[in-house]
């Protein structure tokens, strides 16, 4: 592409501003749902592209990363400078200077924001300054004269509230009249500060000393409570518990519908298409593969919705300091909190959230250990195993279930510590974080963020999981083998009997035997038999080995894989099938799920890296396939050794 913008887009408008000024809210208001998230090539910064109509003509809108100043060394600052100089553009776009620059300022914090305005003015681009949050400012008695600012700057200034919509309409008119600022803002950092001071005095209405006292007093009390060493942790634990409780309980509804939809879809495919390999592939490979991904969407979207809501209240900034204290001994910082929390839904968006971590080694360490956080896909496996381990005691089941999360979290933190003491050596600097004012949660913004993250998950994880599902299906379907030798005898028996119930029972048993035989003789089964000796010290037989291997496609596939091998069906909701799995036998007649084996499996699933989509994202975000290999080797290594120790110990002590 050689033009500066697509043929139908008249120009590029860039949005610049401090973090927390409501730039994204404004962007969403202007662009609506027409937006696309990509990357600034060569950086870890996200680029958000949208559209805005000015004078009836559509322009491209680019949301730049929030920065405190343009002259800083940070990645965000460099990206903004490069874009304003015309040297950088979002992936797929041709670099060119923006046709208009919109600087968004916070009316309740004008002094600092004016310094950024000064720096932006130096680029001499047609500029519009937006004084956002004017409703908040008014409520607090803060007044600024935007026409005076416009005179001083020499370009349009618009006061608005992006959140309530007040005066947002006048922005496009202002953009049409945008001109390069004529103000003399000097060259240096000190010059910008001085200009900001003088301009601020000229445009801000004098206010009484105690103007902010009420606002401050309340904020003070909340801050002290939320960062208190004891109270802060209690509040944090309560909020996090509430968060997870909501996610687990609410997400169950849409998850059930999705389950039903895909089961029906599979059934429809089976009923509609003629018998044959294609029908099998579609019903069992494709539908199951897509369904297996989509079913996690509710938990992922819900988690991001809640995190976004919490963040918009301002609480998370305070919580970051609380969690920072816990993370420091392990070589991480409070910045790692949201990525690691997100990884409890799915490591994929969690690892992408690591872009926000400023320290490079911190970021790498977090990316590497994020998959240790127990993700949604592990839940079906945990549930299956804790029920097998504690069939009579729901309390012990719950304890074991929670314990899985704790073990995963600890393993992650310890691994981070080891990384930070060895190949990622170096002290990370302390946190300096702006604490935004407490506000009511922004539902609209949070819904948009949640939808965005969900879509990214679907696209990235979806393609990989679908591809692996198709491959696994093929390996499990071929080569064709005849019926199992024993089933022949059963069918002959059925032909000789007259009782229809008995016939049905014999036929069902014959079918199951055929399925098991087919799976055993398929390429997948043969691979399983070949690899099985590797897992023998952990107590896994051929069937479990296949289950573990198939889990590399998607962890949750373990349950259905076992069901297919053991009971010849995928209906894992059926109690009969669950029973069949629990009492399944190995080829030699002994039970598959002995206590020792079950614990060993549980530990393995907590710690192992079994997610190809995550490996791909690690390679990309960490900057090299070697990091993905390291992650794979470390996690599978610890999983293998731990599972082996658990199995052998339980066996040796007679407890398993």
């Amino acid at each position, binding site marked *: 592409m050689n033009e500066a913008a697509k043929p139908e887009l008249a120009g590029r408008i860039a949005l610049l501003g401090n973090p927390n000024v409501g730039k994204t809210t404004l962007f969403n208001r202007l662009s609506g749902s027409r937006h696309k998230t990509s990357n600034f090539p060569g950086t870890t910064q996200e680029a958000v592209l949208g559209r805005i109509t000015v004078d009836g003509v559509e322009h491209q809108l680019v949301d730049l990363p929030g920065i405190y100043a343009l002259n800083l060394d940070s990645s965000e600052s460099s990206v903004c400078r490069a874009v304003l100089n015309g040297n950088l553009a979002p992936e797929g776009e041709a670099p060119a200077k923006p046709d208009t620059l919109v600087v968004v300022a916070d009316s309740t914090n*004008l002094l600092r924001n004016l310094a950024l305005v000064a720096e932006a003015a130096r680029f001499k681009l047609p500029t519009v300054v937006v004084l956002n949050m004017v409703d908040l400012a008014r409520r*607090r008695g803060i007044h600024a004269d935007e026409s005076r600012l416009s005179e001083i700057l020499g370009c349009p200034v618009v006061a608005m509230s992006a959140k309530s919509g007040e005066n947002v309409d006048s922005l496009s008119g202002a953009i049409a009249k945008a001109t390069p600022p004529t103000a003399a803002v000097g060259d240096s950092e000190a010059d910008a500060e001085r200009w900001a001071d003088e301009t601020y005095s000229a445009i801000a209405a*004098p206010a009484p000393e105690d103007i902010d006292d009420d606002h*401050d007093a309340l904020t003070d009390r909340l801050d002290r409570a939320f960062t208190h060493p004891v109270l802060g942790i209690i509040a944090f634990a309560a909020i996090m518990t509430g968060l997870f409780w909501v996610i687990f309980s609410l997400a169950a509804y849409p998850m059930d519908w999705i389950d039903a939809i895909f089961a029906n879809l599979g059934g429809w495919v089976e009923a509609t298409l003629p018998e044959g390999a294609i029908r099998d592939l579609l019903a069992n490979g494709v539908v199951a593969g897509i369904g297996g991904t989509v079913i996690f969407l509710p938990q992922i979207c819900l988690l991001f919705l809640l995190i976004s809501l919490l963040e918009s209240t301002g609480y998370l900034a305070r919580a970051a300091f609380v969690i920072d204290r816990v993370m420091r001994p392990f070589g991480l910082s409070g910045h790692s909190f949201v990525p690691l929390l997100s990884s409890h839904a799915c490591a994929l968006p969690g690892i992408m959230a690591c872009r926000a971590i400023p320290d490079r080694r911190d970021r790498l360490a977090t990316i590497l250990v994020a998959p240790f956080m127990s993700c949604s896909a592990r839940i079906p496996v945990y549930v299956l195993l804790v029920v097998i381990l504690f069939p009579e005691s729901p309390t012990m089941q719950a304890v074991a279930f929670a314990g899985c999360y704790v073990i995963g979290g600890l393993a992650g933190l310890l691994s981070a510590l080891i990384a930070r003491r060895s190949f990622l050596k170096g002290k990370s*600097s*302390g*946190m300096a974080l*702006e*604490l935004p004012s407490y506000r009511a949660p922004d539902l609209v913004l949070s819904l948009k963020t949640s939808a965005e993250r969900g879509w990214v998950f679907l696209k990235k994880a979806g393609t990989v999981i679908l591809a692996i599902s198709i491959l696994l299906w093929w390996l499990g379907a071929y080569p064709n083998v005849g019926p199992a030798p024993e089933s022949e005898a059963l069918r002959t028996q059925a032909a000789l009997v007259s009782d229809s119930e008995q016939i049905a029972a014999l036929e069902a048993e014959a079918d199951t035997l055929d399925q098991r035989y087919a799976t055993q003789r398929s390429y997948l089964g043969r691979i399983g038999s070949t690899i099985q000796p590797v897992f023998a010290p952990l107590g896994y037989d051929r069937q479990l080995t296949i289950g573990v291997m198939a889990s590399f496609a998607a962890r949750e596939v373990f349950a259905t894989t076992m069901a297919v091998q053991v009971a010849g069906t995928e209906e894992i909701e059926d109690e009969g099938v669950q029973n069949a799995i629990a009492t399944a036998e190995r080829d030699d007649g002994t039970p598959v799920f002995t206590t020792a084996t079950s614990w060993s499996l549980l530990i393995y699933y907590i710690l192992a890296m079994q997610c190809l989509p995550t490996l791909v994202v690690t390679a990309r975000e960490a900057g090299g396939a070697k990091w993905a290999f390291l992650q794979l080797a470390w996690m599978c290594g610890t999983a293998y050794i731990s599972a082996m120790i658990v199995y052998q110990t339980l066996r040796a002590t007679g407890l398993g």
Partner: protein
Amino acid sequence: MVSASDPTQPQPVTIPLTQLQRGRKGRIALSDEASPDSAMLRAMGLKPQAEVRICRLGQPCIVAVKNQCGGGCRIGLDRSIADRVMVCPAD
């Protein structure tokens, strides 16, 4: 550490932020330190002559930057960083 333009004036006392008591105010002093941290802190609002009030001491140290006509921002600092920010106590 304030670069006084008039050498006959006594140098104002500057102390680290962490030595100010809670609720007290001060003005940020120009520091000679040119660490990567200090450029960021300055950009966040902790620039020379900025008026700050201590909201919380300890870990983290929370200060409120006050603009003279109302408004401002609030910054949370790790104690190790707050130790290196110098202020002139105001009273």
